[in-house]
Structures are given as C-alpha cells and as structure tokens.
C-alpha cells in the first residue's frame, strides 16, 4: 500500500527507517516538527537525500561566510550569477557570458570506475546546460593511489576510459585536467570534472518555478531504479519479500550513463532556449526529482503540484519514494508557459526526446506530489531544498601537525655532482607524477567543435568562444595536496596561485574561480580544521587577486577506514583573452635564437616537493612561500608581453621545479636549449626547488632588452638563463651535462604506458 499523507496522519507511531537513510534522531524530529506529523515514505526519501551532506552542504555551509566577506563590489561587477546557482556565470565581454563549475564523483568511480567517471562528466555538463549555456569543453582533475598498486591498475584505466567515453561521445573537447598519484588516495581515488559553457548575456536562464499555471515538464531519459541505493529500505518496508521488496535491497547504487541521449538533450535544450519557450530549467543530478522539484519550487515564488505517476518509467513496480530518489541520468526538468507547451513538445519530438508534463506551478507555498490521485508529499519546498540542517562541526588543529611541520626536508641527502644531477633530471622526468600524460590525454577528443586553441600538455586549456572576434577563455585546475597537508591555508593559496599562473602564461587574464573541496570526514575535528583553513585561504587569496569564487563543490568522507586523503581543494581558474590568436604556447622553438628568461625568485624550498616525495618518500616541513602580489605582477607582465608580441613561449614552474619546466618546454617544442645556471646558487636548488611565482619565458632576441626593461621597471626579478638551440637536439645544462632530446623523451613518455599500457 502506498504511504499517503492521510495514512501518515492516521499512523503517527509507525516506525520509519530514517537512520538507515542517513538521518540523525534530531533531524528526523525536525522533519516531524516542520510537517506537524510523521513524514510519508516519499517525504522521508526526499528529506533524507536532500539533507544528506552531498546535497545540503550541512557541514560546510557555515564556512561560506568567508566567500561573502571576501568578495568586494568590484569583484562582483562581472559576476552574473554566483554561489547558489547551478553554476557561476561571468561576463567576458563582447556580449558573452561564460559559466563553469567543478564537481566530484569520487565514490561512484571507485565502485564502478568507467560508469562512475562517465556519469560524473554527464552530471557537470547538465549543470552547465541548466544555465542556458552551450557546453564548450570539459576537464578532469584526477587523483589515484600509488601508481604500481594493483587497485590503481583496476581503477585508472576505467576512469580514464569513462571520462573519454562519455565526453568524446557527447562531442565536448577535453582541454585539460590533472593526474596525480599518492598513496593517500588508495581506496579513495578522486574524480573531479569541470565543464565550461557560453551563452549570450541576454540568454542567461536561472532555474526557478514561477508563474501560477505554468507547466512542469520532465524530459530526457526514462526513470529507472539506478542509484536508488539506500531508499530501497523503504521499499522493503512497504513490500515484503516480493520482487519489489527485499530483492531490491541489493540494488547497485551506480548509474549507467548514455552520452548519446545527453548529446541529443543538449541540442534539444539549446533549441528550446533559442525558441524562448522555457521559463526555467533544472538538471536532474544527485537526488533526482526530489532535488529538481523542491529546488525549482523553492527558488520560485509559488508552490508546485506534481503528478508523479506520469513520470515515464523504465522499471515496473517502482514506489513513489523510488521515483523521487532515482538518479537515472540524462533527464532535465523545465517550467513552461501553457501557451508554449505545444511548441516545447514539437522541439522534443524533433530530437526524439521523451517529454512529459508532470505538474504545474501553483499559487500558495506547498510542494504537493500525488501518486494515482493520492497525496504522497505535501511540504514547504524551502525546508527540503534550502533550509536543511547546518552544523558547526568541532574544529581542532591535528596533534601531529606540529611534528609534521618540524620534520623538514633539510636533512635529506641532496645530489651535487653533475652526473648525479643529470640522472636526477631524467629520474624526475620519468616519475609518475611528472611524466607525460599523453597515455591519458590521447584517449580524449580535443578537437571536436573546432574551437580548441590550447589543450594538453599546455599549462591551460583555451577555447575560442566568438569566431568573429576571436574572444576566448582559458582554464586551469590545480592542487598540490601535499602542500595543503603541510599547511592548508597556504597550500590552498598555492593551488590558487598555480591555476592563476597557468591561465596567465597562456596570455589570458584571470577572471573567476571555481573549486572542488575534497576532504576526509567532517566529523573529524582535524579534517574540519583543514577545511576551514582551506576555505579561508582560498577566499582571502581570491580577494587579494581580485577574482571572485563563483561556485564550487564539496566532497567529504574521502577516506579509507579512519585515514583521510590528503586535503585536496582543487582550484579552477577561468581567464579571458580578447583574441585567441595572441595565445602564448608552451613549447619553445617557434623562432630561432630565442632567449630563455626566468622570472621570479628561487629559494631553497623543498617541503612537500616532488623531489622529497619521489626520491625520499618524505612529506614534512612547510610548503613554499606564497606571494599573491607577485603572481598578479607576473600575470600583468605576461599579458603585456603577449599583447606586444614580446613573448614567443611561456611555461610556469611548479611540480619538479626548473628542471621539469625545461624538460617540458624542450620536448613540447621539439627543440633543444642551452641553459646557464646562476654561479652563486646551489645547482640542485636552482633545478628542483618548487618556489612559487616563477615562469620561464622565451623571447625573441629582438625583444629581449625591451622585455627585460619592462620587468625591471615593474620590480619583477628576471634572469637570462639560456638560449633556444634548434640545432643541438639536446637540453644542455651548464655544469650538469647534456641530455639528448631522444633520451629525455624516452624517460618522459615511457612511464604511463609501461604502467597502464
């Protein structure tokens, strides 16, 4: 029997499995208080998913005050939509608005790597579609356990194939990402996905259900039993033993994606927007219809009535609670004026997309859901979607933090002889975290849609948005989680600084920030300390750089047993470039006789470095110093250099230091170089330190003086550090030795194929 509102009123003492659904005693009590009665099964299903950590941000929300406190009016000026919307939107000029967001799909990708990663891409793309934008490109920051661990061999190929399988079939170029290995992710890999989209500023659509009498239309795939997971305990309560009951307890909590349906859905949505026949649109992601209906109603000015039995189903015998919680992919929900419904249906029919009117906007302030004429949900939508619980979790700096900081890398054995240094350049180039990502990125379509200007292995991905003017955007995501572990505040600012710098070295101007905060359990005060420090670090860093955080995502409970992952706040920076034709490439060799200049200061900074990790398995000390004013100055210099045609290539220094940057600039440009180190500084420090705020640029001979003068005038340290040498076919580092490009290439390219080929 269906648990109706009447039934709930009549049976107030009926025991409900709210704990199995993840609700705490006081949360359940609050639901009863809101409703003035016990919830129905369907209501319980709705509240339990919407009040989950994933949907309600109940442990993190209190920290959002840092975003607002650090966003100045100037930073807000270019923001058309910010935190709270499906994705942030920024004005990039020429009448274009760009929307972008990062999201995590960590746990599903561990259970079922291919489908978990694939549906992660699918979900973030629908978020972008919900803003009214055309998705333009995706990126995939990934983290894995030790590279030679058997589980990494199971998980990595599946995740990479899933990211590619979905994105390639969807027709979105993959323009960048990350692949990081660290044992802390063993048993808990991170799959973050970013999507960026664009629209004309006047086409921005915010999802809300307003206008009494407007129709609610569900369109896209049918609704099945996918991803129901926990909610099946309700079914087993209601039914007993039959196919609809206990049999469903074992339902896999994974979803299978259908990128073909999503591609068609994209074109269909864009046509609906073009025709101007939608009031608002909402994607169905986590929490499915529970989320879409309550969020649409909550964001609107009225109520909503939904006839749930009209939802097209893929499985038989589904209960209302299951229909509401299903996470079947490739579905969207639209609010449409009655006069436009026919036109709406015609567009869907053209694209062979199933569309069903399931309800309408009502006056009043209730979300009422019926099932074959009986009311199964009758709730104030805001209490489901926006007024969930909020926790002030205990925060405490971990006890072992001091010991970690005290354990500096200063005593680790360092090479000094030339042949040792030469060998180390090669060893680092071949290390799993620094080796070429080609094995991964060759599985991703980078060309589709014809707007990709930069992609792997460039510092940032760049997409042309306007074909006429050449206006475009650049994006980079970064996070060195070892730095964050050592000092979450500084480490997060270093992630921000690196992503910012990666955008700047492509010639673009950084404009806005998104993030995906991957942490351990919020119930661990030490994790919450990391989290709070990270949020504050990011918010205050953004204020200093003058670019706003426009959105993000939190993923907690990333841990194996009681061991949390390294705190991993992945930061994504979006930049704008008025004409992509003046982009700065990563590889040298465009012109003969370029000079290599090193911008910035190099200090003895090895805490959390790739060298300490790779060679000594060491993590301790403090991360490199962060100087955001310096990062800003660097960006200004690079922009000026690009505008005036003074820079022919640029590559920032990050993991692995100068040595790795030299290896990559030479190999990507397929050109040799001769490098002179500073006689007054230890060659090891010069080659492998990971001091922030540094960039290697190649400038044409004729521009060297002008560029150097510009740096000096503006107070940016610059050192002439080498020359491009197309003839030599080798990287020659004075006092270290010569490494033929073939040998370098074999080291850099060989590692991932050998591990996963």
């Amino acid at each position, binding site marked *: 029997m269906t648990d109706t509102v009447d039934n709930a009123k009549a049976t107030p003492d009926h025991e409900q499995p709210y704990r199995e659904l993840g609700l705490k005693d006081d949360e359940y009590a609050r639901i009863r208080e809101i409703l003035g009665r016990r919830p129905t099964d369907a209501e319980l299903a709705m509240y339990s998913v919407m009040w989950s950590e994933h949907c309600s941000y109940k442990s993190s929300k209190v920290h959002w005050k840092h975003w607002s406190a650090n966003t100045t009016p100037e930073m807000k000026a270019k923001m058309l939509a910010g935190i709270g919307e499906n994705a942030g939107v920024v004005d990039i000029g020429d009448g274009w608005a760009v929307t972008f967001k990062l999201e995590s799909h960590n746990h599903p990708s561990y259970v079922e790597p291919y489908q978990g990663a694939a549906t992660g891409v699918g979900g973030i793309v629908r978020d972008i579609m919900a803003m009214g934008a055309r998705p333009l490109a995706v990126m995939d920051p990934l983290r894995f356990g030790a590279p030679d661990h058997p589980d990494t061999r199971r998980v990595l190929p599946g995740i990479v194939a899933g990211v590619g*399988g979905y994105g*390639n079939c969807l027709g979105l170029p993959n323009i960048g990402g990350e692949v990081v290995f660290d044992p802390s992710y063993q048993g808990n890999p991170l799959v973050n996905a970013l999507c960026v989209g664009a629209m004309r500023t006047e086409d921005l659509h915010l999802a809300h259900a307003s206008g009494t009498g407007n129709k609610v239309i569900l369109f896209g795939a049918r609704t099945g039993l996918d991803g129901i997971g926990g909610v099946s305990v309700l079914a087993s309560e209601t039914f007993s033993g039959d196919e609809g009951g206990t049999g469903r307890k074992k339902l896999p909590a994974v979803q299978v994606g259908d990128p073909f349906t999503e591609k068609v859905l994209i074109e269909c949505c864009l046509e609906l927007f073009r025709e101007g026949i939608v009031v608002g649109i909402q994607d169905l992601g986590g929490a499915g219809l529970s989320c879409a209906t309550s969020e649409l109603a909550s964001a609107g000015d009225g109520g909503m009535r939904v006839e749930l039995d009209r939802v097209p189903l893929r499985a038989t015998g589904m209960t209302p609670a299951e229909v509401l919680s299903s996470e079947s992919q490739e579905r969207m929900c639209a609010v449409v004026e009655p006069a436009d419904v026919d036109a709406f249906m015609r567009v869907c029919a053209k694209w062979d997309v199933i569309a069903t009117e399931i309800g309408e906007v009502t006056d009043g302030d209730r979300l009422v859901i019926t099932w074959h004429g009986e009311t199964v949900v009758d709730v104030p939508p805001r209490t489901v979607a926006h007024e969930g619980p909020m926790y002030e979790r205990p925060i405490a700096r971990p006890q072992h933090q001091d010991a970690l900081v005290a354990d500096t890398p200063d005593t680790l054995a360092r090479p000094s002889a030339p042949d040792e240094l030469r060998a180390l350049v090669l060893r680092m180039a071949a290390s799993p975290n620094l080796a070429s990502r080609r094995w991964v990125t060759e599985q991703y379509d980078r*060309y*589709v849609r*014809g707007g990709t200007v930069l992609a792997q292995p460039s510092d940032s991905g760049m997409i042309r948005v306007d074909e006429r003017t050449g206006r475009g955007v650049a994006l980079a995501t970064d996070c060195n989680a070892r730095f964050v572990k050592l000092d979450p505040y500084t480490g997060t600012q270093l992630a921000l600084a690196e992503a910012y710098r990666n955008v700047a070295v492509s010639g673009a101007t950084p404009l806005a920030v998104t993030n995906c905060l991957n942490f351990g359990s919020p119930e661990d005060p030490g994790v919450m300390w990391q989290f709070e420090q990270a949020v504050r670090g990011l918010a205050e860093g953004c204020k200093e750089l003058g670019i706003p955080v426009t959105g993000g995502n939190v993923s907690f409970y990333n841990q194996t047993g009681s061991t949390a992952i390294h705190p991993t706040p992945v930061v994504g920076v979006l930049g704008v470039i008025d004409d992509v034709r003046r982009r700065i490439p990563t590889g040298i060799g465009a012109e003969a006789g370029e000079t290599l200049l090193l911008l910035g200061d190099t200090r003895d900074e090895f805490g959390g470095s790739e060298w300490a990790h790779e060679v000594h398995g060491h993590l301790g000390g403090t991360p490199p110093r962060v100087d955001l004013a310096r990062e800003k100055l660097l960006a200004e210099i690079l922009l000026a250099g690009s505008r005036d045609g003074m820079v022919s290539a640029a590559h920032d220094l990050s993991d692995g230091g100068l040595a790795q940057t030299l290896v990559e600039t030479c190999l990507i440009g397929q050109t040799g170089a001769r490098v002179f180190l500073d006689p007054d500084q230890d060659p090891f420090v010069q080659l492998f330190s990971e001091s922030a705020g540094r960039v290697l640029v190649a400038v044409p001979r004729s521009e060297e003086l002008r560029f150097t003068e510009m740096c000096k005038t503006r107070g940016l340290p610059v050192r002439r550090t080498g020359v491009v040498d197309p003839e030599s076919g080798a990287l020659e580092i004075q006092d270290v030795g010569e490494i033929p490009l073939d040998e370098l290439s074999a080291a850099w390219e060989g590692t991932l194929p050998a591990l996963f080929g």
Partner: protein
Amino acid sequence: MRIGAVTFPGTLDDSDTLRAITAAGAEAVPLWHGDADLRGVDAVVLPGGFSYGDYLRAGAIARFAPVMDEVIAAAKGGMPVLGICNGFQVLCEAGLLPGALLRNAGLHFVCKDQWLKVENNATAWTTRFDAGAEVIIPVKNMDGRYTALPATIDELEGEGRVVFRYAGANPNGSVNDIAGITDATGRVVGLMPHPEHAIDALTGPSDDGLGLFLSILDAAVRA
C-alpha cells in the same frame, strides 16, 4: 558550389565540417537525417561523431536514415560524397565503400595528430594534393581499424583505391595502414582522419585538411 553536411542524432563534427566547407569558399548546407532531401547540393559530406551512440556498430543505424536513401541514390548517379570517420563507417555500412571499421587494435579511443601519405590524388576529393605528399591531420576514433577480406584488400590495392595511408605508427591496426579509400569512380571517398579539424593552425595541427574541400571545388569548376 553547394556542399551539404548531414547531421544524424549523435553527429558531432557537423558544425566543424560546415565551417571547413565555408573556409574553402563553398556554400555550406546543413542536411537533416530525417529529411529525404539533399536540398540541391552538388556534393555531400557525412561528418564524424557517434551517430546513434555507435551502440550497435559504428554507422549501422545511421545508414538507414531517410537522408541516406537520397545520398546512396545520388552517389550512384555520380555525386561526390566524402565520409569522415563516422561518415566513413556509414558509407561502409551502406555498401558504398567496401570493408568495415572495427575497434582499434589498442582498444582505446585515440586522438592524435597523424601523418598521412596521399596515395591517390586523382579522386574528386584529393586533386589539390601532390601524389605521395605527406600531410598532418588529426585522427580521433574508437573504431578506426579498417578491415576487409583479403580479396577486397587486393582489389583496392590493385586498383589504386587506397587514397590515404598512415605514415609513421599505425594508430589503430588498420590493414595495410589504410586510412582512406575510394570507390571505383573516385567520387565516393571515406577516411578516418578529420580534415575538417585541420583547416587552421590555430585550432588544428595544420591547414592540410583544407585540401580535400578545395579539391572538390576544383572538380566543380572543371565540370
């Protein structure tokens, strides 16, 4: 000259193909899978992508679309047709070209800048190239391994109907490094690499791909 590009559900490179046609100086005409109408075009391109998700076999479902009846009839009447990647797969499924395209030997999707050798510059789509020229054009596919029975391969090789061959490493295990072939008339050509992604060094590895679209314009001028 009017050149059409067909959009099937799941076609991805249609807008890029239309852009390439325009860049070559022809009039680009979008064609819809569900319309049995070629809108008076002088040549047709079947672009890349994953029509119908490639779920059954690449190109197997698209081949039955209403527009394909027109394309098949027009091709038999001498209209130039170019199939790129998924379009090549559709042409094989439709029987306009022999053989089939199967899962890459490495079992991964492969996207890379690929050197190709132009083996036949006498087709309607390749006159702008020098015979034996090497060009660089992206290849990107999951099912790009050209396969046919030995007798068919012998026939193709014997009649000089291999149009493009992979130079350097073979990315997908194609028989005889075959990247593209033509029918006996030289007017229907299919290839796995994507010339529409090589029309400008800003967004591709080169502008070598433009040669195919310029060739067909030349053919129209000659005709």
